[in-house]
């Protein structure tokens, strides 16, 4: 058996994988892990999105991978550069949890659900179908996307391992 190589995607980071490599991102809390896949070319991309919209950015040079509305176009461009076709892409996503529930707190505490909403809206605008998602809840997730099989493996402390 050939060992599949693992490509790590950090927080507020994105990357692509081909030739059966695995994309992995760890410790998703309110962040969303988004995987895009072109099944006929077996090209996969993953983004670890931290915030819903770059409109709130106060930094001088924006880290595109950090915001849902900039990470998805950037990921599409990178994947197209590798030979993927946007009209064939499928999406799977995980994360967007609310780690701590606090009564009566500001909107920033609902960051997880807002990240998910923003990702889904972006995918909708590009007409990319969402095959499956495992989002919300109050627990962290580590995810791995297999660019050979197109499956997203999700690991959590409370619920163990599952594949979507």
């Amino acid at each position, binding site marked *: 058996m050939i060992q599949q190589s693992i490509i790590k995607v950090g*927080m507020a980071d994105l990357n692509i994988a081909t030739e059966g490599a695995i994309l992995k991102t760890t410790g998703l809390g309110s962040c969303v892990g988004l995987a895009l896949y072109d099944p006929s070319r077996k090209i996969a991309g993953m983004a670890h999105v931290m915030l819903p919209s770059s409109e709130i950015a106060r930094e001088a040079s924006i880290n595109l991978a950090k915001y849902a509305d900039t990470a998805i176009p950037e990921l599409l461009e990178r994947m197209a550069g590798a030979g993927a076709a946007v009209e064939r892409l499928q999406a799977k996503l995980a994360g967007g949890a609310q780690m701590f*529930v*606090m009564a009566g707190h500001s909107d920033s505490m609902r960051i997880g659900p807002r990240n998910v909403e923003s990702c889904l809206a972006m995918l909708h605008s590009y007409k990319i179908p969402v095959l499956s998602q495992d989002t919300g809840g109050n627990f962290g997730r*580590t995810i791995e996307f297999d660019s050979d099989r197109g499956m997203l493996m999700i690991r959590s402390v409370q619920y163990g391992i599952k594949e979507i």
Partner: protein
Amino acid sequence: MSIINRLAAFELDVLKEVGNIGAGNAATALSTLLDKPVDMAVPKVSLLPFEEVAERVGGSEQIVIAVFLRVEGESPGNLFFLIKEESAKGMLQGLLSFDEHSSDGYTEMELSALCEIGNILTGSYLSSLADFIGLSMAPSVPAIALDMAGAILSYGLVQYGEMGDAALLIETTFLGDGQALEGHFFLIPDPESFDKIFKALGVGSE
């Protein structure tokens, strides 16, 4: 991240002292609870890339028990009290005579007890800090989670996400009962709190 780039060595020392006073009082509280000496490391103040914050407690996937408080008031921020599972079990047995049980996981009673320990320690951390700085700090009701360190800590980094890829945190580690009990405090003031803290302490940046 202009505030943070401006920080002089002297100001970093001030923040270390802030961490020292808070954690010192918390360590005393823990020592009283345990009836054992508790040692404390010198606080660290660092501007860490998001990716490295969780490395301080053993990596993004390290399972930790975290008590989280959102601090409101004149200098808002996030305060985490993190312990690894072995330390949590040790605390439950040592302090509260909970029976050692072989099964994984925690009963509601045990989590509630850990949350209360966290509440006492973070409460003493914050109240000594508020007295020292002279700013009001109102903690939220504590919330507890048993999960991956990366997922938990990222929750406290969102305010920094809007302005960069790194966060300034004040970290203090303490050790009790030899090396058996290890805990970490992470105070992550909101970016706009630093000027207020310095001003209240009479450390002008101008």
